[in-house]
């Protein structure tokens, strides 16, 4: 009752008074004969009754109105999670409330709508989450693809490019965005690659095929690639296939082939390494067979008794002896080179004076030089030249250079060994007055088994002495070896090494 406002009560009172006035006015014909007291009582009673009746009705309406409002407010104020429940809500209205059925119906509809809205909201959120997940996955896959330094192409079932990474763009020289959905045969003209792709796509079952294919590199030079083509069936192709199957025969002829992912791996360096290895083995066996051929020939001459006098027999034995030494040297050099390259050989670098290594090499080679009447000059720097070097290996390199000079310097020639300080580096050189080298030979002189053909009669070298010196100086000690030469006048081999003083 306290919730009813003043205007409401004023209206109720005025309505009651009006009613009373109307009743008294209408009852005038019958109340005229009554005493004024009785009339007043009658008017008063009637008015009071009317007033009470009207008030009660108004109060009940007001209560029902408040109950209805409360129920509607209750319905609207329900928390969202309540709608997840499929059960409709209960309405807190008395059983005789006139709005009860209507409100129950409204509540049910409202609940049903809200429940469906809630469901679609949940579905939308789930879809959004899935979409975000897929976008992240796609981004990750794209990132992986583009960061791969192997070219990757994706071709659909119609032979059109649908994806390519930057490596592929560089290899085939195209822009992936512009080339999207372009026929693959417009991107590469390599018949072998197109055939491989075609063959992979035409297969009924999923297949992976691999071939070694030559493609032009960035500089136009052909490079070897191991090409792997892996077929796949796209969703669109699966649908088309299903349609073809249901429409039996009608679309069967236009059944698409499979898509394919093509991955190319540059194997040029492996091929070159294989080639180098094969050439190395071939060259080693050739070099070994040469002294072996002499040994076998002279042994046979001796066995057959072809050498009739002691002098000839001694000559033959000397050949066998020298050729055995040559074979031994060759095997040692091959093993040494292989051990250095494979990292098997232990390197003990210590700071030491370069001059003492050079003096040791000088003393080692001196007898051979004297035997050929060659003057071996030692012109070493008076300065202390420290190098961080493996003593045995650096000595080997110096001996190889000096022996080489002795071999290719005619009798009566001169070989000079020098050393010097060179602005933070140390240098030594072996200068000879030998046969010299042509510019072409200067370039190839450090190649394995490369021997200047016209001079092979001068020395029974192994073709590995200079390559070994180069490996020791450059790969093992971080130095540099070079040659300066004039054909017919002589050669100078120069070795530059980091100074141990500079290295600290």
């Amino acid at each position, binding site marked *: 009752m306290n919730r009813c406002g003043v205007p409401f009560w004023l209206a109720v009172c005025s309505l009651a008074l009006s009613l009373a006035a109307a009743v008294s006015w209408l009852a005038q014909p019958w109340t005229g004969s009554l005493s004024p007291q009785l009339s007043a009582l009658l008017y008063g009673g009637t008015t009071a009754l009317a007033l009470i009746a009207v008030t009660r009705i108004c109060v009940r309406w007001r209560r029902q109105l408040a109950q209805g409002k409360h129920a509607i407010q209750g319905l609207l104020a329900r928390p969202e999670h309540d709608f997840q429940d499929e059960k409709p809500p209960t309405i807190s209205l008395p059983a005789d409330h006139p709005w009860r059925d209507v409100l129950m119906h409204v509540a049910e509809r409202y609940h049903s709508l809200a429940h469906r809205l809630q469901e679609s909201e949940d579905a939308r959120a789930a879809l959004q989450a899935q979409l975000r997940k897929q976008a992240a996955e796609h981004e990750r896959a794209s990132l992986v693809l583009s960061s791969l330094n192997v070219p990757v192409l994706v071709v659909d079932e119609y032979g059109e490019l649908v994806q390519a990474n930057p490596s592929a763009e560089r290899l085939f020289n195209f822009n992936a965005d512009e080339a999207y959905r372009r026929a693959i045969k417009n991107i590469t003209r390599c018949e072998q690659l197109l055939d491989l792709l075609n063959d992979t796509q035409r297969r009924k079952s999923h297949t992976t095929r691999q071939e070694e294919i030559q493609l032009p590199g960035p500089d136009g030079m052909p490079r070897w690639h191991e090409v792997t083509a892996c077929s796949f069936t796209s969703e669109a192709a699966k649908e088309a296939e299903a349609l073809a199957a249901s429409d039996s025969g009608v679309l069967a002829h236009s059944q698409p082939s499979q898509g394919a992912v093509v991955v190319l791996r540059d194997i040029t360096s492996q091929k070159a390494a294989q080639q180098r290895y094969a050439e190395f083995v071939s060259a080693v066996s050739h070099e070994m067979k*040469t002294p072996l051929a002499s040994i076998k*020939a002279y042994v046979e001459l001796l066995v057959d008794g072809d050498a009739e006098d002691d002098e000839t027999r001694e000559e033959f034995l000397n050949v066998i002896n020298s050729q055995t030494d040559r074979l031994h040297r060759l095997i040692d050099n091959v093993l040494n080179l292989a051990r250095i390259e494979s990292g098997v050989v232990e390197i003990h670098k210590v700071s030491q004076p370069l001059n003492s290594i050079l003096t040791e090499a000088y003393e080692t080679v001196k007898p051979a030089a004297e035997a050929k009447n060659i003057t071996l000059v030692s012109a070493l720097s008076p300065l202390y030249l420290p190098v961080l070097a493996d003593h045995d290996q650096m000595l080997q390199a110096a001996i190889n250079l000096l022996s080489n000079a002795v071999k290719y310097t005619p009798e009566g020639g001169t070989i000079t060994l020098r050393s010097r300080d060179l602005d933070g580096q140390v240098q030594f050189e072996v200068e000879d007055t030998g046969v010299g080298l042509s510019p072409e030979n200067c370039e190839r002189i450090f190649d394995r088994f490369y021997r200047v053909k016209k001079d092979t009669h001068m020395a029974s070298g192994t073709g590995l002495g200079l390559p070994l010196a180069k490996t020791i100086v450059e790969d093992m000690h971080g130095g540099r070896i070079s040659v300066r030469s004039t054909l017919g006048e002589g050669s100078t081999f120069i070795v530059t090494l980091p100074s141990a003083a500079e290295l600290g």
Partner: protein
Amino acid sequence: MSYDILICDDELHILRAVEFKLKRAGYSVRCAEDGGKAWEAFQAQRPDMLITDLQMPVMNGFELIERVRQADEGKPSIPIVMLTAKGYEMACRELAEQWGIQAILAKPFSPREVVEQVQAALAAQVS
């Protein structure tokens, strides 16, 4: 008159061994240290037979044989025996057929076998 045989090899010990063996077998032998010198010797006097190495400076064995065969045209071709350390890597039969080489001996070879091949080749030519 003994047969004149030209031997060509840049490996002097091999050259000397073959020369020694053939001379003992009664042949007249001339030696050349490379293909160029062999070609000069061939031009100076046509030998009855050629024994040559394959890998040689100045002019290799095949170049030498090609010139010899060109010079041979119109005349009965001389027998040729090839000595090589690359024996296993070559398609010997095809090459022998292509150049009319009687034998390809792989190094290390037997000097005895060289003499046998020379005798067989020269005998076949006479018959």
